[in-house]
Every structure is written in structure tokens, then in C-alpha cells.
């Protein structure tokens, strides 16, 4: 880029300016910038700055420990939180290690998503392919979909007892409607020309389903999957507050009973980090499995 950014003060600070302003060779010469939404992306430097700011605020409100802006019964300091994390990771809280809580939560989400997908996708495909089945399933889907899963938790506890079974079934309930609607929408995106071309090439009905309709619906199904993972994660942690003796939600709930603010904060941070990681994971899978997405 020989004539990039002629205004740069010196080559050694050019990269800094670029990191700050996002100006690069593709938009350096643009005169219309405000409103050019397609050129807007997330500058990592600014994300880093906001993270540092958050940590600084946390630090400031705890200067002076219990006498700081927030006392120890309201919020824990960074050091206390870190110590709590180390303790939780090694010895655990009330005889259950952090790893056990985390894996209990993750396995519940995994099972819920598995069954939600395995049951939901075929129903969604069927709804997309047949007016009769569309009509048949429309009533339950439209009725159950708006119910916040947590509203059913008391009922699920009555039916399935406290513990894993209730949590898992609640997550199936949380994800299945999303997966049904995603698969149904995916079927609808198929171009009739593709179906006709496939028939002319000798495909049978099962081949049309497996080789054309399903792959064609994959991008939509994946979008639904991502949404469902997010919803499940949020639902699960709340469900664990009441329904289980393991899991991150349950750990937070027990810590609250003993005013262990530090443990609560560790739990919350781990929940947030895992949520982000899961989203990144699904997006990574998506890029690997459906590289044609959005490029049709």
C-alpha cells in the first residue's frame, strides 16, 4: 500500500491510528463516511478499551474494601473474586467443584438441544412440506411457543421431580419450537427451480428431501440452533436456581443463602463466558459446515 494514508504522521504510528479509526486502504479515500453502515465493523481496540473501563469501574467501587463505594455485602472485590475462583476450582463450594457445576449445566443444555433438534427439525420439515401437517402442527406450535419456559418450571417439577429430568425437559421445551420454526422457514426458502431440476435429473422423493430440501434448509436451521442455544442457556441457569442441586445456577442460589457475593460473581462471570464461547462455537461450526451461507 504505497500511497495509503498520506496524512499519517510517521510510519511507526500509522498502525496505531489505523487501530483507533479503522481507516484502511479500502475506505481511506471515501468522502462519505457517516451513514456508510456496510463499512462499520467492530474495532478490537475499542472493545479492549471498554473492557478495561469496566474493570476500572469495578476496581474503583471497591477501593477501601468494605468502606468503599460498594460494601462487601453488596459486591466483592476483584481479588476476593479471584480467590473465590481458585478455591472453587480446587476444592469446590459445599463439596461440589466448579467443574462439576459447570459440566452439569453444559450437559443439560447439550441434552436439551439434542432432543429439541432431533424432534423439532423433522416436525418443521414436515410442516414446510405438507399443508395438512402444517395445519395440524400449527395449533400446538402457535399456542406453546409464546409460553416462557420458566413459567412451566413448577409444573415440570411436579411431573418430573427436582433435578436433571425437569431441567432437561424444560430445555427441550425451550428449544423445540425455535427449531421447528427454523426448519419450516428453511424449507420455504427452497427455490422451485432447484426442486424441478432435481426431479428432471432423476431424483426420487426421498432424494429430493435429503439431497435438496435438507441442505437448502441448513442455514436457517443453524440460525435457529444459535438462537435456541442462547435461550436454553438463559433458561437453564434460571431453572437451576430452583430445580437442581448441581449446576451454575444452583451454585449461585446456594451462595446467596450464605451471602457469598464472591461466589455469585464467579458464577455469573463463568455463565457469561460460556455463553459467549458457545455462540462462537456454533458460529465456527456454521462457517465450516455451510460456507455458501449468504452467498447465494
Amino acid at each position, binding site marked *: 500500500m504505497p500511497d495509503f494514508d498520506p496524512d499519517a504522521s510517521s510510519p511507526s504510528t500509522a498502525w496505531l491510528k489505523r487501530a483507533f479509526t479503522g481507516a484502511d486502504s479500502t475506505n481511506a479515500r471515501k468522502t462519505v463516511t457517516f451513514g456508510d453502515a456496510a463499512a462499520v465493523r467492530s474495532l478490537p481496540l475499542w472493545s479492549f478499551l471498554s473492557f478495561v473501563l469496566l474493570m476500572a469501574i469495578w476496581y474503583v467501587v471497591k477501593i477501601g474494601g468494605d468502606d468503599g463505594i460498594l460494601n462487601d455485602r453488596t459486591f466483592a472485590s476483584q481479588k476476593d473474586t479471584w480467590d473465590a475462583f481458585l478455591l472453587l476450582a480446587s476444592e469446590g463450594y459445599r463439596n461440589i467443584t466448579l467443574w462439576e457445576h459447570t459440566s452439569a449445566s453444559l450437559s443439560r443444555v447439550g441434552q436439551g438441544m439434542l432432543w429439541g433438534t432431533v424432534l423439532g427439525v423433522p416436525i418443521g420439515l414436515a410442516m414446510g412440506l405438507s399443508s395438512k401437517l402444517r395445519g395440524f402442527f400449527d395449533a400446538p406450535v402457535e399456542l406453546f411457543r409464546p409460553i416462557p419456559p420458566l413459567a412451566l418450571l413448577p409444573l415440570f417439577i411436579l411431573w418430573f421431580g427436582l433435578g436433571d429430568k425437569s431441567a432437561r425437559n424444560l430445555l427441550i421445551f425451550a428449544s423445540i419450537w425455535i427449531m421447528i420454526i427454523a426448519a419450516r422457514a428453511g424449507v420455504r426458502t427452497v*427455490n422451485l*427451480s432447484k426442486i*424441478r*431440476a432435481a426431479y*428432471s*435429473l432423476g431424483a426420487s422423493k426421498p432424494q429430493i428431501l435429503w*439431497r435438496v430440501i435438507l*441442505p437448502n434448509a441448513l442455514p436457517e436451521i443453524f440460525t435457529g440452533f444459535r438462537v435456541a442455544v442462547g435461550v436454553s442457556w438463559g433458561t437453564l441457569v434460571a431453572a437451576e436456581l430452583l430445580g437442581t442441586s448441581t449446576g451454575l445456577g444452583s451454585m449461585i442460589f446456594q451462595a446467596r443463602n450464605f451471602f457469598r457475593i464472591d461466589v455469585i460473581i464467579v458464577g455469573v462471570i463463568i455463565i457469561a463466558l460460556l455463553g459467549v464461547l458457545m455462540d462462537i462455537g456454533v458460529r465456527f461450526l456454521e462457517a465450516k459446515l455451510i460456507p455458501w451461507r449468504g452467498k*447465494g
Partner: protein
Amino acid sequence: MKDLSAKNVGMIYDVPKGEPVHALEDVNFDLRGGRLLTLLGPSGCGKTTLLNILAGFLAPTSGEVTLGGERIEGPGQDRGMVFQQGALFEWLNVEHNVAFGPKMNGVNKEAIKPIVDDLLNTVGLSGFGDKHIYELSGGMQQRVALARCLANDPDVILMDEPLGALDALTREKMQGLILKLWRETGKTVVLVTHSVEEALYLGDRLFVMAPRPGRIDRSYDLPFAEAALGMEPRELKASAEFIEKREEVLSLIWEMEEQIMGHEGA
């Protein structure tokens, strides 16, 4: 080679609210196997409808279409279809798109490979086998569509404005490819187009269709597709004979358009 025929084909679309649309009325023709028929006519005259009936995607409301004397009842591998766009499978690479037909028929991998390589070579895409569809230009995508359709060795190739979405230069190149394929394979081709020039250049037979109701208004036997063998396309299209035919067909279509306008104005 099998002959393609239409006998008294009529098509009426029932519109839920409103009058039924008379898309085709009393369409009759006999197309000898191995000819290249182009269909031309103003928008809405039933070109796509006729092509879909030939492909077996639509059943006519009256009359019948036959291939080699056998009635066409549904889609079949003896008739391949090339669409304007959007009919390739984005989730498969070029090679697998072309291999789709043989694969559906249970042809084994070792036998498919040479078929695919040969076809990619024929359409000028050797070396592009592992590319994804979205990596190809519009012209290249239509080459893949042609190769995919040829992979099952159909008797008839049906094309609905196959070059309609391409720029002028690519379009000329693709016209050359279609002529070349037609000559080399000896297949029957029916090609719908909006371009008078294309219809004259490619067709060794041309139907000019008229709307309301859709019908074949005039049929021509044309010399240009044959002549193109020993002649530059530009030279051919600039020849007096070509220009004369072009003006004739153009004024025919203009007349129809004016009638439509008058009809709609009334």
C-alpha cells in the same frame, strides 16, 4: 432421435380471485429430433408455460405433448432443464453439481468421474471442479447448469432464458457454446429467449408466439445456426439476410406489443 410434438395444447390458469388466464390455446407443432427450436414473443405469451409443459412440470388443461410418440406425464430424465438462474445446488461444488444426476441413478463413483471430467472439459470448466458455486461468475454458473443437464444424456434440453441474466459479451460466448453443444451432441433443444437476435442466431427453427391467448403466431425455418459453422458470429449477424429477418420479426413483435397496449388502454 425422438420427435417432440404438441397436439392442441391449451393451458388455462385458474386465478383464485379474478378471471382465469388463457396462457396457451391450441398449440400444435412437430419438432423433429435433433433440431434447435427457439421461442420468442412478448412477455406473458406463454413461453415459460409451454416449456414447463414440455418438461412435465405442468399438465396442460387440454391436448397433450409427446416425446417419441410417448405422452409426457411428468418430469423425466429424457428431458433436461436449464433455468435462468438459482437452480444450481450451492451446497455442492461444481463437480458434485454435475455428478448429481448420475449419482441419483446409482451410478458408481468410478464411472461418474470420467463423465464429469469430460463434461467440464466440454463446457470449458476443466480445473474448476472443486470450486463452490458462489465463487463462479454468472456465465460460468450457466456452464455448470449445462454440464449438469447433459450428465444424464437427455434427448431434449429445455432452456428458459438461459442467458437472460448475463452481460452482452458473456452472452455471445455462451451462444457459441450452446451452438457447439447442439452440433456435437445432436440433441433436440428448445430455448426461450427475449432477444430477437439470439432467437434468429441460435434457432434452426423459430416460433414467434402471440399473447391473449398464448399461441404460435408464426413459424420460421432458419439458416443461420447452420451457417454459423463456417462464419464469424459478428459477420453473420451483420449480413443482409440476417438483418432483414431481424427487422421482419421485430416489426411482428412490435405490432403485438402495440395491440397489447391498445388492449390495456381500452
